[in-house]
């Protein structure tokens, strides 16, 4: 698959295939959780999912494309530099979420908060679909299809807002515990809150590139902000790939 980086329609198809794979794996995860609670299996599936997103949606391999030859004023050189910086930011942010996961396992061990598993599956699906559209938006922009880009971005935005509404608007209200009840409830609100905060930042980011994109600021060759927003959005998705099993699937209900 990785041989066809340049052909736009192949790229769109690739995004779709990955999306289906991710959906399937999520379903598998859910089934594992219901049937046998195998921690190792769940972490393996989550790692595979994260790997797929990192490689096919976030194009982590592009970090290797260091074009030493280019002049320091060329666009390619600048994009490579920006990309490196942005990924370092993501690395840094990843430590925050790793810390939250550590906190969760330290305080809750192999129990999990009392949550509605179906709702969890729904919001996870919403975020996953948004990732698919985000990937589409980027591919379309890189193929010069500004209209398609705008449409896909709008769908992503709507789904992203839907996700936050699902977590904050529904899940938080329905949870049978309040923030101050126990360490477990604290962890739940902290993890989902911190993640939702990142989704909201992503929504703002998307809003900006949508507006600028429609104004024609970007072109197929010159669209680093679109790539950055994409990478960011998918990163937030990767975080959820780990948070979802950690909050909804692993362990027995406390």
């Amino acid at each position, binding site marked *: 698959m990785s041989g066809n980086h340049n052909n736009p329609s192949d790229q769109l198809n690739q995004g779709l295939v990955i999306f289906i794979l991710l959906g399937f794996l999520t379903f598998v995860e859910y089934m594992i959780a219901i049937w046998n609670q195998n921690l190792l299996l769940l972490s393996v599936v989550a790692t595979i999912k994260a790997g797929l997103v990192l490689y096919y949606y976030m194009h982590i391999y592009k970090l290797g494309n260091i074009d030493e030859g280019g002049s*320091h004023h060329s666009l390619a*050189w600048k994009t*490579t*530099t920006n990309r*490196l*910086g942005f990924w*370092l*930011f993501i*690395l*840094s*942010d990843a*430590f*925050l979420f790793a*810390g*939250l996961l*550590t*906190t969760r396992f*330290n*305080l809750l061990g192999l129990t999990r908060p009392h949550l509605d598993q179906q709702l969890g599956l729904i919001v996870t699906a919403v975020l996953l679909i948004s990732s698919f559209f985000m990937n589409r938006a980027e591919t379309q922009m890189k193929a010069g299809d500004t209209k398609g880009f705008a449409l896909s971005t709008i769908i992503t935005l709507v789904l992203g807002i839907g996700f936050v509404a699902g977590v904050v608007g529904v899940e938080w209200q329905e949870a049978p515990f309040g*923030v*101050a*009840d*126990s*360490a*477990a*409830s*604290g*962890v739940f*609100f*902290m993890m989902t809150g911190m993640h939702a905060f990142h989704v909201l930042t992503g929504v703002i980011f998307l809003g*900006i590139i949508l*507006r*600028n994109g429609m*104004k024609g*600021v970007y072109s197929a060759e010159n669209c680093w*902000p679109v790539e950055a927003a994409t990478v960011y959005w998918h990163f937030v998705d990767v975080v959820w790939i780990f948070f979802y099993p950690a909050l909804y699937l692993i362990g027995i209900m406390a």
Partner: protein
Amino acid sequence: MKSPEVKFSKAIALFLGGQVVGLLLGVLIQTALAGVYNGAYFKDIASWLLGVLLALLGFFYGLIGYYGLVKGLVWQVLGTIAGGLLVSAIRFLMGLEPFDLAKFGFTEGGWVAGALIGAIAFLAGVGALTDWFKWAKGEKTFDHHQDPEGFIKYFGVSLDHKVIGIQYTVTSLFLLMVGGLFALIFRLELSQTGLEILSLQMYNSLMSLHGMVMIVSILVGIAGVINYLVPMLIGAQDMAFPRLNAFSFWIAIPAAILLLSSLALGGFDTGWTGYPPLSVRAPLGMSMFFVGIWVAGWSSILGALNLIVTVLRMRAEGMTAFRMPIFVWAATATSIISLTATQMIGLAFQLVLFQRLLGMPFFDAAKGGNPVLFQHLFWFYSHPVVYVFILPGLGVISELLPVFARKPLFGYKWIAMSSLGIALVGFLVWAHHMFSSGMNEYLRVPFMYSTLLVAVPTGVKFFSWVATLWQGRITRELATPMLFVLGGIVVFLLGGLTGPPNATVSTDLHLTDTYFIVGHFHDTMFGGYIFPFFAALYYWFPKATGKRLNEKLGKLHFWLMTPSFFVLTLFMMRVGLLGMRRRIADYDPALSFDPWHLAMTISAYLIALSVLVFIWNIIKTVKGEQNATGNIWKSRSPEWLVPSPMPPHNYDQPLKVVGEPYDYGLEGSKYIEFVNKEEHE
């Protein structure tokens, strides 16, 4: 045109005026809030600090007018009030008490929101966000940025890494003096048993803030040295992301203000480590401390990110990894730590903050929380960060030794790799701060091993330094930078060698939380940071200003500071071993520590005096006429091959690396060449 002299006296006048107005304002507000006038309000620290804030505002206003820093400060004050009022309004709408007189007006949530909005307002006011707003609106921004003429450029947003480096460095010196001043005050209290001048609460607040202000001063200081030097050393025009660079610097200012504001808002009594559950119960100042450090953390993270990209992408042609000046290695290793580990202290502090604000019981054992978890998160950052403090300092030592020994750096690759080694092993040792904390007992032995392991790469550095000096041709006159380098080596050696007794668990059970530890870390931090920092200042001052600091005063500084410092820390270790606990305002007279503490206090004041000598030296030199524009140290490093002060865009012609950086004593060898010049010849 007015001369700067005239402006200066106006600034001083406004400074004093600001202090008076602020003090009166503070008393007025308290009278209004309490409904009665009470003479004791004049003694209240909050009013005095309000005065200091207005005084600084007045001072800078007198100096530069409503511009840059002044604008930022005004916006920060307004932002804080707006944030506080916003929360009050929300609380009012929710039917809750909107204000809390016991907490200086706003509720705790109001103060925290105010702090964050204030910090952002500062950035907007100072102009650090302008280009990003433009970018968001899809407007064009320009890479080339013209700084205003004269000293005013240091008070506003500049994208030039040299200006930013100097801004950082001056801020760091200022914080060093503030933190040192706190130490001087509480050392006075410690000079004999009994409580004489401070209350317990005040002692604890000053001691805790001393620790954290010093640490922030170090973080800002290394950022200063790194920012100023690295682009020059690798032959670049600037950092990879100049705008982000300016942002990283300017966000440190509101962070420092928040940190210091905790003194006015009730203080706190936890030490710099802020362990819960004590920090959950501490006064409002605790929250300001947490928010301040969280904001300062972003300065570290973004600065580190910028540096790594700069080193990876901006090196001059031919500068392979092992041909970089050694300081660049140190800066990179440091940045790897800052980039990643900082998030953990941010998270740890946020968790406590949320427990304070919303009652989320992360550290409340009765509700399933775990106080020890905080310590793990905290030390996961705060141990590696001690290597952030020293790696650049050790880099400066490695950079300067060959110049003054006139001999190549011995074992360049080993020194470079040892920096990385220290940084990486440093990630695996955090629990050595927790040997007696009640964490899982079986963790103690593995953490003892990993901790001891750090001695190996550190040892490599020491041995290589000695080998560099061995059979060198050390310059006849030991210039001030070299003195500080040598002092740094000795002091850091003492600090380092007192590490293993802390690392072996059973001896640490005696040592932990005593003045032995206090002695250990003052030695490591002074030897690993303060001494090399001063060495760097003396060494590169001519590069930045074209003038060389006075040698006589420099030597006075050194010879005043070093012996006093030995007395201070060696006595600390002695009383610590004999039973002196940390973080106590008063000690048992039965221990008969009084004379030792008195000697420590006197040494502390001598150290302060030496710092004043240094400041005086700077003022005298800047005003003086003597110029030093050439390669006064006879260094091979690229920045010395162009005249001082450094031109705005560093190197007019691109340079190319053609040899090894430290080939002293090799006839006809060259480290770099300027590309176009060669063609002309």
